[in-house]
């Protein structure tokens, strides 16, 4: 299954095309530049792979949690592409993506993904993979006070909280710095073809976890 994935939940603006015969990824650290960069990157990934729209089986996007505007850019872009190309969309947790990246990098299978949510809070999700990287189990993504992060002594952590909450990052037996990328979104999407929904079935939406009015 050839999947075109978009991930813009953090300052990392990322596009990836992954299939049996293809793996092309582009990413750029670009705070507040996603609206400028994302479609040129999609265009570039497709042309590097020599792909046309008809070669794509499904679209995927990082649904969050993360920065609200970035999440809506990813959701909006996949909506537009899905409508224009008549493709189904697979939503993937941006936290699961980070955990998958950590698995790929280390081969270790259990990770707590932590993304800085500002205001003293962190988005977290616990993920367990098999040795092939298939997601076996995960908790529901949640928003917690940074001070509440209290991992078991043998727990691995991955994410972007090292700078903002070094004391929490230090609690993990192993800590990896990461932000979500589109390759991981595509890899996880390819594990769940049954969750590819047409726009008629489901409009791709961000996962915010925080209310719009506090």
């Amino acid at each position, binding site marked *: 299954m050839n999947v075109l994935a978009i991930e813009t939940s953090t300052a990392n603006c990322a596009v990836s095309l992954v299939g049996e015969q293809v793996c092309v990824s582009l990413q750029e650290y670009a705070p507040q530049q996603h*609206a*400028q960069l994302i*479609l*040129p990157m*999609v*265009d570039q990934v497709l042309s590097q792979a020599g792909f046309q*729209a008809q070669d794509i089986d499904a679209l995927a996007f990082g649904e969050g949690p993360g920065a*609200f*505007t970035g999440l*809506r*850019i990813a*959701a*909006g*872009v*996949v*909506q*537009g*592409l899905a*409508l*224009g*190309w008549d493709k189904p969309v697979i939503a993937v947790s941006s936290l699961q993506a980070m955990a998958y990246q950590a698995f790929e990098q280390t081969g270790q299978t259990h990770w707590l993904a932590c993304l800085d949510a500002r205001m003293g809070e962190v988005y977290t999700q616990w993920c367990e993979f098999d040795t092939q990287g298939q997601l076996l189990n995960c908790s529901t993504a949640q928003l917690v006070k940074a001070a509440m992060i209290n991992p078991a002594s043998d727990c691995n952590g991955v994410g972007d909280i090292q700078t903002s909450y070094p004391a929490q990052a230090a609690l993990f037996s192993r800590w990896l710095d990461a932000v979500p990328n589109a390759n991981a979104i595509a890899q996880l999407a390819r594990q769940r073809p049954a969750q590819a929904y047409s*726009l008629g079935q489901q*409009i791709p*939406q*961000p996962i*915010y976890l925080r209310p*719009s*009015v506090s």
Partner: protein
Amino acid sequence: MITNPMQPMCVLAIESSCDESAVAIYDSRKGLLAHNLFSQVALHAEYGGVVPELASRDHIRKITPLITQTLEQAGKPKIDGIAYTAGPGLIGALLSGGAIARSLAFAWHIPAIGVHHMEGHLLAPMLEDNPPAFPFIALLVSGGHSMIIRVDGIGRYKLLGDTLDDAAGEAFDKTAKMMGLGYPGGPMVSKLALSGDQTRYRFPRPMVDRPGLDMSFSGLKTFSLNTWQKAQAEGDDNDQTRADICRAFELAVADTLMIKCKRALDQEGLNRIVVSGGVSANREIRAKLDQLMAKRKGQAFYPRLEFCTDNAAMIAYAGAQRLMAGEQNDLNFAAKARWSLEDLSAIDHH
């Protein structure tokens, strides 16, 4: 992605600059084919104003289903270009529509154009049967704007006057709010004014004795507040007093706008006026401007009522003019919170 300038086009448009999600399809040969709008007014009402994050979240839910619905209503025509509101407005709201619009155009290999929201309002009367000829004076009065503009053609705009503080619609809404008339209260002020006694209060006509075309409405809002508080102190804070204040307030705004428009027409030597924006739905303002234009043997042009407020039909029309002139944006859909009408490029095919 190359268009032949001046070729007729069928354009799909998306408007999401504030609290209305709207989609329309305009064909330069056949006119408006379909238009739909989802208003978020009820969502924001409990907060007494537009909550930007709430607006953005709703746009990203509603726009794509509205596109599908509008395409079906129009009979699934072949779309030659896509227009979307790129500013001015709420950044998150604009980006929601922009992301969908620009990606759809990319997927369809057709050109896209980011449209100036106020250019949409300026050109809205062009969708009517008897459109104004250039040049004309335009009065744009809404909850966010109060501007007098000289229009010599598409993209040829000269800002002649602006509000120095509140927009006219903002003063309407605030007058309503202080008297407990709910949100958005502007239309309620217009409605209550119908049963108001216009001889009971007299409100000032701000800045009419000063030269120039700038306006100010915050003083009028304060005058409403003082009048209402005095009535409250005297135990006179009833519905009739509300209606009388609404009437006096509305007359003051209408007179002020009429005086400024007369001055603009005289100054520019013109005799056509276009009135657009949500406040232009107000009956008294229309009556005053109609009287003014009748006396001068000129003409006032209004969009139909549903196109006075935010809509995508006007964005489709404005976008079609620019796309047909060969203008288009690259793949960047960055939005502009602030954007001067005077910075737009002129197009010549009219």
